């Protein structure tokens, strides 16, 4: 109930600032955090996300499936081969005719080249592999592929971001474009820049994907969240990444 009051209050107070965030005003969620949480992310021995990166590194060279192949058998040293990959995902998959995110790419790789069953969303191993791959792009600017085939999906992602939903009838944009410099109860409303996924959220006490974060927000506005892996969530991811073009990857980020 308090949350609802806070949301309504925030909306009433909001000046009509509507519109997308100017390039020079974009800020990572990092800049909204307190210094102790920043310190936690900055030091690789205190960043709990690094536990998943380490596990991902072990999984990278673990042979699985009927062909007894590891990621490393095709892709070699991830430090070279995976550098910059997370910065351009979700990417268009010709066979599926639509964009796939990093988690889906890992599962497609497992199915096609390792004949291994897909890993569940938010499972430890999928998060670990995704974190390990994304970590290779840390510090690199987000650079979505300039692919015409992505255009309709990007447009749909943007539409979903702007579309009001749920019992509270709020669009993502109502908070993250229009009110990002304000607070919702005690928490900063951030700009929804997906710079550090998968990331360690103190509230979750675990690493989580961008899809988990999106679903959490949808539940928050009392909408029926899209299922993990649904085209809608991938389109949203695509839009968010393009919206954050040029911002450096932080994976694994820490957030409150």
């Amino acid at each position: 109930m308090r949350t609802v009051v806070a949301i309504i209050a925030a909306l009433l107070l909001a000046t009509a600032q509507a519109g997308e965030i100017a390039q020079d005003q974009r800020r990572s969620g990092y800049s909204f955090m307190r210094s102790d949480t920043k310190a936690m992310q900055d030091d690789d021995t205190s960043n709990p996300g690094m536990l998943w990166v380490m596990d991902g590194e072990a999984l990278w060279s673990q042979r699985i499936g009927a062909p007894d192949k590891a990621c490393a058998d095709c892709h070699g040293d991830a430090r070279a081969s995976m550098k910059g990959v997370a910065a351009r995902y979700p990417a268009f998959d010709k066979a599926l005719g639509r964009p796939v995110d990093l988690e889906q790419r890992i599962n497609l790789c497992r199915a096609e080249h390792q004949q291994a069953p897909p890993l569940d969303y938010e499972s430890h191993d999928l998060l670990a592999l995704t974190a390990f791959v994304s970590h290779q792009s840390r510090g690199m600017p987000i650079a979505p592929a300039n692919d015409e085939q992505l255009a309709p999906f990007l447009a749909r992602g943007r539409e979903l971001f702007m579309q009001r939903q749920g019992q509270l009838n709020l669009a993502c944009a109502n908070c993250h474009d229009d009110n990002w410099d304000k607070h919702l109860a005690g928490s900063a409303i951030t700009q929804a820049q997906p710079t550090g996924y998968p990331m360690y959220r103190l509230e979750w006490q675990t690493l989580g994907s961008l899809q988990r974060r999106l679903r959490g927000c949808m539940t928050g506005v009392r909408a029926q969240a899209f299922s993990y892996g649904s085209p809608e969530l991938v389109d949203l991811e695509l839009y968010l990444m393009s919206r954050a073009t040029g911002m450096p990857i932080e994976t694994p980020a820490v957030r409150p």
Partner: protein
Amino acid sequence: MASALINVPKRARRGDVIEIRALTSHVMEPGYRRTASGEMIPRDIITSFSCRYNGREIFRADLFPAISANPYLSFFTTATESGTFAFEWIGDNGFSQVASAAITVE
């Protein structure tokens, strides 16, 4: 899959006070929560942590259900001699995790 992240300075001068940080992955399930269908989730926590400096125990902690997942411990000691810090975490369901880090004291 269990793993630990340790931060011990690689070098120190004799007599320096050094900070040691240890982070390990663990769910720290408190044992008070229920699943969506109402069943109790059994307790699964780390119960004890210890750090030995060249075999001598310099720090020990008991852990309890209210401690968050992936517990992070930080403590101080005096660098007396070159050698090894050995860390050990022990918990429910036979959980055991060890790690070590070397230090050179000049």
